[in-house]
């Protein structure tokens, strides 16, 4: 993940900062009044600096690209290449690299193709990277609701596309495993168990679907990374991550897996009871960027959400990237020209994601 962020100061597990220590010896010889004034000024200064630090999202900045795309057709490759080029990607970034594409195939079914990242998007992205001389491009998923990886390929319509394009598919649920330190540590999980295939990839690309989500509000490039967590360690569904807190888990996984790029399939998204039972929403959009929180924040805005109202994005702010609009350089289409209102189902549970 690339951000132009300075090194943040030491942080507590909950994201707060310890107040700087003031040695008692430094206060000797001061009158009580001057000491109080000085301490007050210092506290005010520290508080203001903290506020500014927070409001500036620790000076993290990113760019996202919004492109219109009305159909899953051959023009996608060109649209995606244009977007990536505007974000600074090109052959020099990709040549000789191993590229892993991570679509969202959480529970595909032929009856509801809007559940999963469309095969045409996966293929188009693969072609872009191949033409930029990637050493290899492969597709990998560890879907959360279906154990049978081949059923996922059958139901999603991806199998013939992979065969025709000669793209390998790796089942991340059933892979060799390595343990790695939880880089953020917001959950109680000290280590995360990850599939060995992640180590094979030089570049990890999250390819989510633009969907509402009944537990997280939206599921985009960050939530999509639940599919990098192997089911043999976390189960079906990956209930460990629910018990640890979905929002915190999203943040821990994003910080630990560190994807390089996100491209959101928002041509036909999902509204209502996402991520699997919602209804299709023709949004006709592709959203992409190097920084996942920024991509998700922009996409959330395009869906009619305020990113700060989504706990995982609020938690990402300044930690993993910027989410405030003024800190994200928008390329391609503007948010205002493409913004829509993805419906949520009428249930009190959903009010947290879109407060009155």
């Amino acid at each position: 993940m690339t951000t132009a962020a300075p090194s943040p100061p030491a942080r507590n597990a909950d994201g707060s900062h310890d107040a700087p220590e003031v040695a008692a010896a430094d206060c000797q010889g001061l009158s009580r009044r001057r000491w109080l004034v000085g301490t007050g000024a210092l506290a005010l200064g520290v508080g203001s600096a903290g506020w500014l630090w927070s409001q500036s999202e620790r000076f993290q900045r990113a760019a996202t690209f919004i492109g219109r795309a009305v159909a899953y057709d051959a023009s996608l490759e060109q649209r995606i290449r244009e977007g990536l080029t505007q974000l600074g990607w090109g052959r020099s970034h990709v040549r000789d690299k191993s590229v892993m594409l991570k679509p969202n195939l959480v529970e595909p079914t032929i009856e509801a193709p809007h559940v999963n990242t469309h095969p045409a998007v996966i293929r188009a992205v693969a072609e872009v990277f191949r033409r930029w001389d990637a050493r290899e491009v492969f597709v990998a998923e560890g879907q959360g609701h279906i154990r049978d990886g081949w059923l996922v390929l059958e139901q999603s319509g991806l199998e013939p596309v992979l065969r025709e394009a000669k793209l390998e598919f790796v089942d991340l649920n059933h892979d060799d495993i390595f343990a790695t330190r939880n880089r953020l540590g917001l959950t109680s999980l000290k280590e995360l168990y990850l599939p060995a295939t992640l180590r094979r990839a030089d570049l990890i690309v999250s390819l989510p679907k633009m969907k509402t989500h009944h537990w997280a509000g939206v599921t985009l490039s960050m939530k999509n990374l639940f599919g990098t967590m192997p089911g043999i360690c976390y189960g079906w569904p990956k209930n460990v991550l629910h018990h640890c807190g979905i929002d915190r888990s999203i943040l821990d996984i994003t910080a630990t897996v560190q994807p390089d790029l996100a491209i959101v399939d928002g041509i036909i998204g999902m509204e209502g009871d996402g991520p699997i039972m919602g209804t299709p929403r023709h949004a006709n959009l592709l959203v992409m960027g190097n920084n996942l929180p920024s991509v998700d924040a922009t996409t959330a805005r395009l869906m009619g959400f305020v990113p700060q109202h989504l706990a995982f994005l609020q938690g990402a702010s300044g930690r993993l990237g910027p989410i405030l609009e003024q800190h994200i350089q928008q390329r391609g289409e503007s948010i205002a020209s493409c913004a829509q209102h993805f419906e949520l189902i009428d249930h009190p549970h959903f009010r947290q994601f879109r407060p009155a």
Partner: protein
Amino acid sequence: MSQSLAPWISASVDRLLQLRVADVGWGYRREGIPYSEPTALGCLALLAVNDQQSTAYATEMATAGADWLASLQQPDGAVGISAELSKPRWPTAYAILLWSQVPGYESQRARSLTWLQQREGHTYPKSRDCVLGHDTSIPGWPWVAGTHPWLEPTGIAMLALCRNQLAGHQRVRDGIRLVLDRAIVTGGWNVGNSATFGKPLRPQGGPTGIALLALRAALHEETPTVTRGCDYLLDILPTTRAPETLGWGLLGLLAWRPRPDGADDWLREALENSSVLHHAPLRLATLLLAASCSTLSRLGVTPAVPHQAAMEVLVP
């Protein structure tokens, strides 16, 4: 491999043997390290095929796998997913199923059965405003300690207990309640979520097969839930060549219904699809289990409907 086995079975057994690693069992991937679940199921598949045509190596390899699983057994009786990862410990039920087939592992089996009877997922009273469709208070087995019980670990645990004359145990009775409660109203099961926000979720063939196997092993009588599950499988199995779906789905169906016409063709097509099975011993083993006529009895399941169990394993 014996010449009397049908060629597609024989070729699949050969492929399974080629995928064996470290002289003990199977991993999830070709050339990977061995893992508990594929090792147990790989050994069970060899034993089941061996019932049709005896070979020297099947028993030898099953014993090697059983030995290796015994080496992973922890002091409390549980078995982790691999030699490197002692947790999670859901594969314990699979180890029991293998140790139930191979003589000499009675003490290991007894310790694991004790552990399995004590293992319980996190449950809680279902509140009035709960958005989940199922009863969250029914005890069952989780994938990972401290988390909610789910369909597959509950079903396999029930099979392991019932295979060891514990069908009347209270945990099995609770397991029946859980499986029935998690059924989807339209027929079948998925990972264990029947509905959310009042909307029924979608069933899947693999979990439906495991649920039906577990219910039959626990001597549950046919109820409308079972009937709907069988109807669902009869509807979808001809349309899929996905190995776990077809394998577990067919085994579950055979516990309650006669063998459907065309089942051999489905299995053969799935087994001959080399791209499906290239890296996946688990998939190969599951299909071989479904192709063998002795698997149900090896799992301790008596079919509800007497039927021609002999599948086309042997050349007519």
